[in-house]
């Protein structure tokens, strides 16, 4: 069984946010509003954040694309009282909308702010398409076709794409990747099997300096950032 992970090359990233927008389009994630933005409740499954250090003129700002880290030791999984969040065998951390009771423990527990609460009624999503789960036909079936008001949502590593690729015998990480990786014009985002020493992600990790966010929390994230 593969263990899926993502490697994001911060030296290649241009901060263009194609990843974040493509994620919204792929996963039918509702857009926010000025008010939600102010309250920080706008839903994002993938967001580019800025981290600022230093003073003029020695300022340094890093832009960091942030999907869910799909931690091997995920605090969200531990705290979920409804078992709505669980880790699949392939390491992807999943949120089952039908089990979620909307208690938001997981949002509090996640050290990465990777989770969003769906405050939206379906009819609020003016641009979206309630009749169509994302990428239904050519990328596989999305398991929770209806967005549900009052539940927690998060990045799935586009597991509908992965599952579909495996069924069709395609190579995950080469032929099929999550929407954010596919949309990256700089080819900064790679996806693949961390347990396969021959995979592109493993090769990148063995040849470059890398870091993970909040390593000290002991969450063992499966999103790696290439720095040097």
């Amino acid at each position, binding site marked *: 069984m593969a263990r899926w992970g993502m490697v994001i*090359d911060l030296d290649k990233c241009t*901060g*263009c946010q194609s990843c974040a927008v493509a994620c919204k389009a792929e996963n039918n994630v509702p857009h926010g509003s000025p008010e939600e933005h102010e309250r920080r409740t706008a839903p994002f499954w993938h*967001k580019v954040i800025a981290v600022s250090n*230093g003073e003029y003129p020695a300022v340094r700002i890093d*832009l960091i694309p942030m999907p869910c880290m799909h931690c091997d030791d995920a605090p969200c999984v531990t705290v979920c009282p409804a078992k709505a969040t669980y880790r699949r065998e392939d390491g992807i951390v999943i949120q089952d909308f039908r089990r979620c009771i909307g208690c938001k423990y997981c949002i509090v527990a996640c050290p990465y702010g990777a989770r969003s609460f769906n405050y939206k009624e379906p009819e609020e999503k003016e641009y979206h398409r309630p009749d169509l789960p994302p990428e239904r*036909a050519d990328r596989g079936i999305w398991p*929770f076709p209806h967005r549900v008001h009052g539940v927690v949502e998060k990045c799935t590593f586009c597991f509908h794409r992965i599952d579909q690729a495996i069924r069709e015998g395609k190579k995950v990480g080469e032929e099929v990747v999550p929407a954010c990786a*596919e949309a*990256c014009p700089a080819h900064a985002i790679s996806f693949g099997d961390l347990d396969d020493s021959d995979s592109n992600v493993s090769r990148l990790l063995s040849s470059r300096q890398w870091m993970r966010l909040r390593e000290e929390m002991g969450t063992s994230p499966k999103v790696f950032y290439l720095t040097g």
Partner: protein
Amino acid sequence: MSRRTFIKLSGLAVAVLAASRLLKRPALGSAVSSGEGVITEKWVPTSCLNCATRCATRVRVVNGRAVKVAGNPLSRVSEGENCARANVGLQVLYDPGRVTTPLKRTNPTKGRGIDPGWTEISWEQALNEVSERLKALRGKEQPERLLLLCGLNTVSAEDIIRRFADAYGTPNVVSADGLNNEADKAGEWLADGHYTQSAYDLERTNYILSFGASILESYKPLARSLRMWGKIRRERPIRAKVVVIDPRYSITALRADRWVPINPGTDGALALAIAHVIISEGLYDVDFVKKWTSGFDEYRKLAIDYYDPEAVAITTGIPADTIRQIAGEFARTRPAIAWRGRGATSWPNGSYSSYAIFCLNALVGSIDIPGGVTYQENPEYRLMPEPVEDDPAREGRARPALDLRKTGRFPAAKVVTNQVADSILENKPYPVEMALGFNSNFNMSAPGAGRWDEALGKVSYYVHAAPFISEMAEYADIFFPLTTFMEEWAYDHSPPGSGFAEIRIKQPVVEPLYDTKSNIDIVFEIAGRLGGTVGQSFAGIGDDAQGFVRYRTAGLASWDKLLEQGVWVGPDYEYYKYRRIFKTPSGKFEFRSGNLESLLKEKGEEINSLTCLPHYEEVKFLGNSNEYPLLLSTYQPLLNIENGSQNYPWAQEMFLVMHGAGWTNFIEINRSTAQDLRIKDGDTVWVESRFNKIKARARVFEGIHPGVVSIASGQGHHAYGKWAEGIGVNPNEIIGVDYDRLSGQAALYSTRVRVYRA
């Protein structure tokens, strides 16, 4: 590695899948809920128009609804990639505020915020009414009094609008170029005779020295730059180095190896100091300079005598050692590119700064070599016959243009966009009786925006064509609702960048959602109604948008193949064309501009010892430094959509990634400056120039020169849009009107302001 599978390139082929098949798949949930039975899907190759790059795209259409935009792998310009703007195309198409039918004004009073009193009319009535007006104006033999204003249109629409102007008899086609890159273009023209932005061979370069070029946000072709950025950083044995000169820490500066803040408007001086170092240390490409350039001795003398790094350090605020270091790196790391951008060239001294920066490329031999400056090949569209001319057309076109291009005021200019508002207000050189705007929105996008409000209010008959209401549309007597680029036929290509030529075909990915037409179709319809020589000029070139695209692209490839692939790519680029590329009196690259000399002689303009050399002129700022101590600059974030609207939630909520902010813009102010002014982050402040003032939110920011404040463009819409109106501020409300004299480029950053708590 091909990590993108190109599924179903067969474009229009429709894959029909039975829902029952889907249901059999082992999934966690009940995958298909609704029982429609059949899902049809297709990928349609087309191209984007959310910026002038016009990237090739493919759009996934499911059950007749566009649901996803992706790149087209057959495009070599962007190598199958897109930027975030392309994805926003879905929200352009499905913008709930689009205008669905032609509109006519009932309220004769025009002005900002005044309700036009729209009433819906038929296309027949709208087109007839406009055509009658056009006929009458031409009947009076005053066709030059028709003004055509163009925002961001497809290349095919630009071609058709220009043809209409020629046939009708007006010299007054005014694009937005005069607000963007004209000084940049003039700089290259001074040196080699090409009035164009440069094509930089980013893919093969080893060193980029950017002078205010926003390579990763607004410089075109953007998606190509983004793709190549990944390539030059980590997909080759040599990792290219990037140094960014800019008063503001832009996204490009953030991703560069080094950011060097500079005193605003002094880039030309820096370029000459770099030349000073390169020449005095003997680091220049002697061979190239000797063989393929002229005027080097005068240029060398100027640089050596007047642009000592110590002296220039005071002008630019960059230490002399840093200048020496950058110059040394630039000259020794070949191939290297000196890349000029709006930040360096949109100044009253813009053409000369642009020229000075461009000359650095010649010094290190980076002209028409792999990894240097290249000469963009244009696609060979099928030529149209010359428009049929009659006397009114000939005489009208021969009249001086409203924007004073090519006059003593703006001798080298091709278009002086911002001058037009004043020409309208002053009736000079003649009154404007009628104007047609195609996707233009100059009373938002031009400095001194308020003048455009007055000017538009004065034009007695204004027709606006766009998919949505905008600030400019508020002044229209007739509104033509346009199709979006997802619903129409067009051809397109990118601004210079790739070297080789590439065409994209736009085809409707969905049927037009509303009772709308493309601007090409509108022009054909009007030309037909005008008849006479105008009508004849539009006969035999395809009759409508689709026919026109087919006519112009005939001979490139079969129509079916063009539709299926969506792009046509020209032959590989050829380097080292020195015998052919220099369009100058000497036939060489000129450090002393013979083109300018002959132009000024022809106009009877004064020429002194500096006039034809790249040199630095101190900028005269608008407003004195006691009263207005700070300089106001602007920048274009990537998610500023260039079609004249910003009514797109995805673009809004990720608008300023560096500030983690959306749905707004800020007045960015250096921390120490803010402390002096007792301004805290998030405070509401007044930003006041000599001309006007606006209220904005302050963002205390480490990444900005202490003497500069900056506002992102793209916000401050006031006419329309649930997701745009009332959000942020428009800096053009307070920026003064100023120009680069040679090119007529609007000087965007020379206005001084004071900032105080509101």
